[in-house]
């Protein structure tokens, strides 16, 4: 079981470390990562695949608490393949 997270971040120091550290600390294993800055460079779009761990809802809530996180969407892998 795994799920996909699509996250928009402020493109500032340490932001990716903060997100990855939260994923690790909350008990999820990172399976895939893709990140690129938005055209104006102020933000970064990140797509992550992580194992299910304690579930996507809890991880999403913890990521939403990070002040550098502008938006988080969580999809099951099947749903993401269909709609993503």
């Amino acid at each position, binding site marked *: 079981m795994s799920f996909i997270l699509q996250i928009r971040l402020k493109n500032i120091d340490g932001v990716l470390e903060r997100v990855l550290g939260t994923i690790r600390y909350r008990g999820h294993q990172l399976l895939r990562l893709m990140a690129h800055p938005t055209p104006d460079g102020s933000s970064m779009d990140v797509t992550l695949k992580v194992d299910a761990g304690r579930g996507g809802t809890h991880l999403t809530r913890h990521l939403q608490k990070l*002040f550098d996180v502008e938006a988080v969407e969580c999809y099951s892998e099947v749903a993401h393949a269909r709609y993503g």
Partner: protein
Amino acid sequence: MNGATFLVKALEREGVDVVFGYPGGAIMPFYDALLEAEFRHILVRHEQAAALAADGYARVSGKVGVCIATSGPGATNLVTGLANAMLDSVPVVALTGQVPSVVMGTDAFQEVDVLGITLPIVKHSFLVKDIHDLPAVVHEAFRIAVTGRPGPVLIDLPKDIQNAEMPPNLVPRPDHMPVPAPPADSLQQAAALLAEARRPLVYAGGGVGMAGAVEPFREFLAVTGLPVVTTLKGLGNARPDNDLFLGMLGMHGAKAANYAVQECDLLVVVGARFDDRATGKLAEFAPKAKVIHMDIDAAELGKLRETQVPLRGGLIPSLRALSIPLDIDDWRLHCKAMAVEHAYDYAAPGKGIYAPRLLHRLSQAAGDKTIISCDVGQHQMWVAQHYRFHQPNHHLTSGGLGTMGYGLPAAMGACYAAPDHRVIAVSGDGSFMMNIQELATLKRYNIPVKILLLDNSCLGMVRQWQDLFFAGRKSQVDLSDNPDFTRVAEAFGIPSMQVRRAEEESDTVDALLQTEGPLLVHALIDPTENVWPLVPPGANNAQMMEGART
């Protein structure tokens, strides 16, 4: 104006009246600007104490506590204090000097990646790379520290940023974010659950005090007539004379509290987080209960326990909406009877000081303007069990991190937050040694902290666990070669006294309550005394152990 001077003025604009810190190379421009500051700087003797004093100040005052350190070891010495504030949701802003930008990343002298080191133990952190960002960063740091669920924020300041010239205009202070209200339909569901419950119980935590919701919480208890248990951090939420307050729940909780939790059919959780020390075996915690959970932090809702009605938002609107008279007389009588049946007994056969009785006596005599700051260990649990708090911010304790060495610096912070209150640090001989250097800070500023040092010449809680769960094999818990603490205190210029006999308990209380200025009371207690009751690891909260007292 340079960045350092701006920073001092920005702290003044944020309403800072005292900061705790220690200077060093990379923070020297700030310390130079500090000479013109309108707020006080308290020079501690170790940076960890600066962070913990800021924590104690913040808990008592409800304002942001500020601590300051230089780069490298100064910054790393803050780490325990920041983690402590993170685990207990305390608003602290830490300012750290950093090596100049041009040498960052070169392993320069006293350079460490403090931003990286502290990422998991702060609510947020900033590295200031452009002087023009500094006004917004300071405002944002203070806003983040207190908004929603509070926590620590770190600002790392390279030395060149502190020295850089900046425009004089200050950014207007932004309003803090509004606290969301819980959804109306969820409140209706919660009210329906409350109305149909036969054995409802409140389980309240530190969130009540942090939300400024103590009086609405007490009104909620008065209107509903709900029995209530609290966490370690929730002690003081209920009025001391509330006869439906059953005590602290959990590992060293009161028997009546733990039995009530196991019997209840509805648990109303108010600003608490199902911490493992509170729940015991989670799968068997409150096994018959549905759950209403009020919390500002969405990440806590359903994190460890399925919740029938999550109420995310400010506590006050939820408490007011659910203040409904309830027809639960039989349950109330049952809870009161349990409280009487399982009340603590202070009779002890020995001739020495019995620490629970001493703390109980202190509680009875201290009145409503006394703050107790605890260290960590057996004495911390005895305080929680035997001292009745009038307000949650009268009880400073390291609940989440369990930081030995917390008590004395936090008590110092409390003295600056509430100078009209008496502040007593209750410590053990293990914990006290962890920040004993702060006796020098007490002396320098004549900070009137009274220290009650309960000395059992060992690491009592670890020793108790080794006795109970490791076949009595004692490993590295003997502290019988402690220094003479009264002479240590005298060497720092702090008056001291030593007590050891049961008949001296009354004099001890008098000394703690009547002495002006700082004081150390060195109380020698029985090294074999244990904290009872105890829920052993892996057991549910109804499976409490209790042993004999000596």
